[in-house]
């Protein structure tokens, strides 16, 4: 066992630190859940990409640096410690890209990945539907065969950033006859500005249009935008949900940076006699460290060749609940200012509140942990 980053990781750390010190915007960008903020974040993605910092873990030919998991983790620590902006391309980078690396064609990768890396094409995930949330396999939106492609019909819900995004990836029922809900689904990509698409922005709790509903009325998708074999959509989608729950969505670097800010806030403002609050600040510091070390251990296991599997459910429950506790503690430390919606902590708090719902609710994750990691009987009585 050791905690020493490899020389390659340390080298990347030094380079990233120097670059970030020079380029991170001095003032925070406006919220990426607004039109203005979205544009500013796109520009930031382009800036990152120009010096190959937007997708360090991708192969060089797609704009990355071929960083391994450990190097990526170290990069993320530097990124968040530098106070760099949130990533508007996250959905694409953490969900679609791994799917294309695993199931896409050479042509799809060449066409899709570089503009994603540059923030030119921002992607939305179109999985959920009004009647298909936790029970995603019950989805009813359809892909109907037509000349040279498919026609999409139906409605998708809660699509993050779809209010401002360019394209979407999602699963659709292409064989309505099969009785098995997980069969006959097809995974494909489509243009949010194509004829037949209506995007209705939906305001989240703080009023910002963080997600949208998509109404699809015979939206044409050419065959080259189908990912993998038609009918195999479920298998393809499930092979990448681990990425969503697990590390790529929430790297420890981000929580380490937040916990660090919280401890500084506590030192600067807290009443030293308030040990109850002190204990919560300590728990936030401990939680960030625990998540970092848990991730390192997981990375070591992956490097040994074991698959991530159901362990990403442990990850997801941990970070989502941790994130809320961290922000609640910060609001409490802020005292009267904790109520004000214009602080960085307030925006983080609203964002954190959703973590236990998206990427598979924590109830569903606990089922997975109990059944697949503890071997308890299936069933949801």
């Amino acid at each position, binding site marked *: *066992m*050791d*905690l*020493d*980053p*490899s020389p390659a*990781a340390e080298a990347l750390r030094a380079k990233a630190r120097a670059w970030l010190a020079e380029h991170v915007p001095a003032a925070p960008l406006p919220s990426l859940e607004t039109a203005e903020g979205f544009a500013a974040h796109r520009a930031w993605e382009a800036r990152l990409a120009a010096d190959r910092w937007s997708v360090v873990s991708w192969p060089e030919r797609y704009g990355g640096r071929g960083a391994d998991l*450990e190097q990526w*983790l170290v990069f993320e620590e530097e990124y968040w410690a530098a106070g760099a902006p949130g990533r508007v391309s996250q959905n694409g980078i953490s969900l679609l890209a791994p799917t294309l690396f695993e199931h896409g064609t050479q042509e799809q990768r060449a066409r899709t990945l570089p503009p994603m890396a540059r923030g030119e094409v921002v992607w939305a995930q179109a999985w959920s539907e009004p009647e298909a949330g936790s029970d995603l396999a019950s989805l009813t939106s359809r892909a109907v065969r037509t000349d040279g492609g498919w026609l999409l019909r139906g409605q998708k819900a809660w699509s993050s950033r779809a209010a401002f995004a360019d394209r979407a990836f999602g699963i659709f029922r292409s064989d309505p006859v099969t009785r098995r809900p997980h069969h006959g689904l097809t995974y494909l990509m489509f243009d949010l500005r194509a004829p037949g698409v209506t995007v209705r922005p939906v305001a989240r709790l703080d009023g910002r249009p963080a997600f949208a509903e998509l109404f699809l009325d015979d939206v044409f998708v050419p065959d080259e935008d189908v990912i993998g074999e038609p009918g195999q959509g479920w298998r393809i989608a499930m092979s990448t949900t681990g990425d969503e729950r697990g590390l790529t969505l929430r790297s420890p670097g981000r929580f380490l940076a937040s916990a660090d800010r919280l*401890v500084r806030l*506590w030192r600067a403002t807290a009443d030293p006699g308030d*040990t109850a609050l*002190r*204990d919560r*600040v*300590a*728990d936030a*510091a*401990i939680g960030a*460290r*625990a*998540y970092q*070390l*848990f991730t*390192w*251990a997981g*990375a*070591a*296991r992956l*490097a*040994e060749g074991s698959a991530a599997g159901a362990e990403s459910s*442990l990850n997801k*429950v*941990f970070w989502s609940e941790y994130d809320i506790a961290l922000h609640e503690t910060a609001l409490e430390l802020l005292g009267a200012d904790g109520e004000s919606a214009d602080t960085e902590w307030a925006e983080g708090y609203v964002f954190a509140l959703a973590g236990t719902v998206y990427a598979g609710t924590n*109830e569903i*994750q*606990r*089922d997975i*942990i*109990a*059944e697949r*990691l*503890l*071997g*308890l*009987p*299936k*069933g*949801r*009585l």
Partner: protein
Amino acid sequence: MRLQPTAEQRQFARSLDAMLTACDTPSAARAWAAGDRAPGRAIWSRVAGAGVFALAVPERYEGAGTLPVELAVAFVELGRHAVPGPLVETVAAAALLTRLAETGDAAAAKRLLPRLASGEDMATLAVTAVGPYAVDPDAADLLLVADPARRDAPARARRGPAPSGDAVLRAAPGHGPLRVSNDPVRGRARPAPGGEVLAEGPQVAGAVAHAVGIAALATAAQSLGVGLALLDRTVAYVRQRTQFGVPVGSFQAVKHRLADTLLALEFARPLLYGAALTGARADIAAAKVTAGEAAYAAARTALQLHGAVGYTEELDLSLWLRKARPLRDAWGTPSWCRAQVLA
């Protein structure tokens, strides 16, 4: 950044596990609580034979070198098997004497360490700044006590980055009346005053602080082991106990509590190994509070999910159930640990 046990560390854990499984540790623990120390001493010798105590002792005193990671690996197994006796206190005593020797006071180490490493002597340790009691002093061959130095002691020149204050290390001549713990396998008593002074001065305070850290680390590991044993046993129980025509383990309320138990234990594990690697005070405190709370929560869950049978002393589960709370608070209460994290 390879926070994974090496092949040797895994093998060490497996062989300890196999050895302790063969020892019938629950009976030994029950006998220990009843005052019969023979079966526990026999296990103690086998634990020593497996090299566990030697992990806290340098080679020059017939140990294996100071190996905190291996120590953590071993204490997880000792906790999983509910091995009785002042295990933590013995390695803490060894760590204290070792650090004293490293800072120039080698006399006590030379005399005492080889016997601790080999398992011939069982030690216990009271650090009065942490708490007034020593665990199992009646069973121990050596009762070490670290007191703050008398106020009138002459000020001494500080050597290196020593913590503030002086301390006195002595071998107590005996102890007061035993108090039964919530865990009957942990008898405790206040050490008697007096006895041979083994060392004195600021370097003793430094060595004591180091020993308290090792004790906290080993306790964290033992807690993790206790929590894992409680989870394993509870999972096995809810799979076979049926109500309403199905195993109770198929009820979501039951599953989710166990999922949370696993989650807490699995996030304590990397903190434990991380702390063993860095030896940093804040890291050890973080591991201690996290493992202690996780094991205690595992105990509460185990008790609940076993129904009434979980509330009996007859079931072996009680051996782990009653350990979790004292271990959570020993060698650094959660609140003290949290303060250390931010210190």
